[in-house]
């Protein structure tokens, strides 16, 4: 659950309920940040979607009102932001071996498209870096700590953004096609992070 003010949430949900975004009601600067999802998207979670609304963008990186990274999807779901695209790729290299394709889960790891409905950004980062264990008589689920794994940690925000879009139902079971260009800041951060 995102820490969203109830009133804001209700407004956003109402806007959605009225049939996808009446842009006229949104201030001009927000209009550019509003998602324009696939009109046929079937798994929209209004609450998660509302909480993931971008309120600002810095060099291609979208942030919600708490300053946490979020996704940005436009052109009726045909174009996505760089980080979501990158997150899709990294997820299907590092995570899908346990958590299944498109964050759908497996016989031995949870579906992250559901987990991310409840985990906030800092909880997500904590588990990613520190791992998680559910070991008892009927369950042996263990997630490793990825703190030392640059292939994961350098793309932690990317993964979060992608998984958030899945949890919100804003993105379905597909590879993103068109995407924003890789921002210069992302190139610099990546080089720095992967570094030596």
């Amino acid at each position, binding site marked *: 659950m995102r820490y969203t003010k109830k009133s804001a949430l209700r407004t956003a949900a109402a806007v959605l309920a009225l049939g996808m975004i009446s842009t006229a009601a949104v201030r001009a600067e927000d209009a550019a940040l509003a998602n324009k999802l696939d009109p046929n998207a079937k798994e929209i979670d209004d609450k998660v979607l509302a909480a993931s609304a971008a309120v600002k963008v810095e060099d291609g990186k979208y942030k919600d009102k708490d300053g946490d990274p979020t996704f940005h999807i436009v052109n009726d779901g045909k174009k996505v932001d760089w980080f979501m695209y990158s997150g899709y790729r990294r997820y299907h290299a590092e995570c899908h*071996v346990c958590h299944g*394709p498109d964050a759908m889960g*497996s016989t031995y790891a949870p579906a992250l498209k559901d987990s991310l409905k409840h985990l906030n950004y800092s909880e997500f980062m904590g588990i990613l870096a520190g791992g998680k264990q559910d070991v008892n008589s009927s369950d042996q689920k263990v997630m490793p700590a990825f703190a*030392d794994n640059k292939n994961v940690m350098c793309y932690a925000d990317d993964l979060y953004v992608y998984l958030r879009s899945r949890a919100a139902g804003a993105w379905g079971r597909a590879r993103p096609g068109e995407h924003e260009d890789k921002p210069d800041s992302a190139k610099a951060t990546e080089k720095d992070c992967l570094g030596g």
Partner: protein
Amino acid sequence: MRAVHLLALGAGIAAATPALANESVLKGIANPAEQVLQTVDYANTRYSKLDQVNASNVKNLQVAWTFSTGVLRGHEGSPLVVGNMMYVHTPFPNIVYALDLDQGSKIVWKYEPKQDPSVIPVMCCDTVNRGLAYADNAILLHQADTTLVSLDAKTGKVNWSVKNGDPSKGETNTATVLPVKDKVIVGISGGEFGVQCHVTAYNLKDGKKAWRAYSVGTDDQLLVDPEKTTDLGKPIGKDSSIKTWEGDQWKTGGGCTWGWYSYDPKLDLFYYGSGNPSTWNPKQRPGDNKWSMTIFARNPDTGKAKWVYQMTPHDEWDFDGINEMILTDQKIDGKERPLLTHFDRNGLGYTLDRATGELLVAQKYDPAVNWTTGVDMKTGRPAVVAKYSTEQNGEDVNSKGICPAALGSKDQQPAAYSPKTELFYVPTNHVCMDYEPFKVSYTPGQPYVGATLSMYPAPNSHGGMGNFIAWDGKVGKIKWSNPEQFSAWGGALATAGDVVFYGTLEGYLKAVDAKTGKELYKFKTPSGIIGNVMTYEHKGKQFIAVLSGVGGWAGIGLAAGLTDPNAGLGAVGGYAALSSYTNLGGQLTAFALPNN
């Protein structure tokens, strides 16, 4: 390494045992009432001489008894039967149960190792274990954490245990072991963690290490003789492995050894395949990456390689070469030859002369295979189709429509062979993929993958994700093929009753006619089957038994459905997620014909 072995010889350890295959194993293999190896016999034919259950009466099969393993993860392998005892293993934590068949399968002893759960996430693709082996009154278990244990078959007491690898570096185990003569030969997993993989022989008697042979490395590590070890008849020469890697990359080169092993007592050679080179990004490791993706023939006493053959030089798709090597004697061009048949992940069915390593047949065993146009029989190299080459398309490019997918046209699920029909019965995957490699950095003990992939049922086909086929290995042709909705991920069993058995991911045990493939019987067990069907005889009655418990790599994609069922992707008709058909489980189901 070799010097150590010579010392051991000098000390008389090996000399005390006759230079024959292990007597107790041979005795068990000769008695069709028992099953002492996961592979049924040394040749890996998975053929049983039992014929009480046959093509005309198999339709009357009934469940005779069941047993819950108490573990809800992927159950690969099968139980063993020795005399009146059955030995059942489980995935992590790798419990072993000894059941007395004379006493209504009462649990006589139970062994449960204490393993650090931190090994769980280091295992690629679920915590499966492909089962136990029996030799010299001992049950041999190779645990997830690479501890090899010899248990007293009567009491379950630990005779000895030895550590084969280090899970903190990504070294784990899922495989069974091969007892040969006075040794037990074991492999290792960790190709996704940059492990430099190897096979190792320990003394059956005391667990002392006899030799270790790497798949990738220096000549000393490989246990090869540059002049005498051959590749398609020619000496492999000096530094055959390391000169096919850039710099030190061979040190994290993979080539893991987690498959099935076979042994020919006459030629005194054992056979196995090595896995993918690390990473999955081919651009990051130029060269042929020898001897990953390779069939090895080695001497069990010394580990020395007699011949090698690399099937997929410079892998670009994760086509591990670890699948079983089935040893048969058949006539090719009118001449009786000692053959080795292997259904590789890369979608090619190979037949070689197992004495010399000569390549005789290399043909696609799934018509969907498209990454190669075929193998040059002189050089042994597959011709790669540029469009499907993730190397040629390069980093950060999504190569689409590659068949088969990374899980191969067949994965670990072992095929069977009937000498009566001279056909191989092969459970296969009918799945294709998009594959996009990119740059990754290496951290010991952390996954080292470097590619994004998505998988889907083979387009423009029957819409299912598997086939169960009969294959003529002499000419390399499919005899018949039964479509399966999901990958056929369970191992097959052929019997003298002209019935072939296999399990499916929905949980069916199926019996088909060995000649025609016609379905004769099916029964839905409580969970998906990724285990291997086995048979045994108790008090004059033949039983068919199989472990249920969905999981393994099959449990990843297939549990959720590989792709969006609505997206189409050329799949004919709709198919739903496996989770709509079955659930987690851990059960043994034994079948028999009704009394009278």
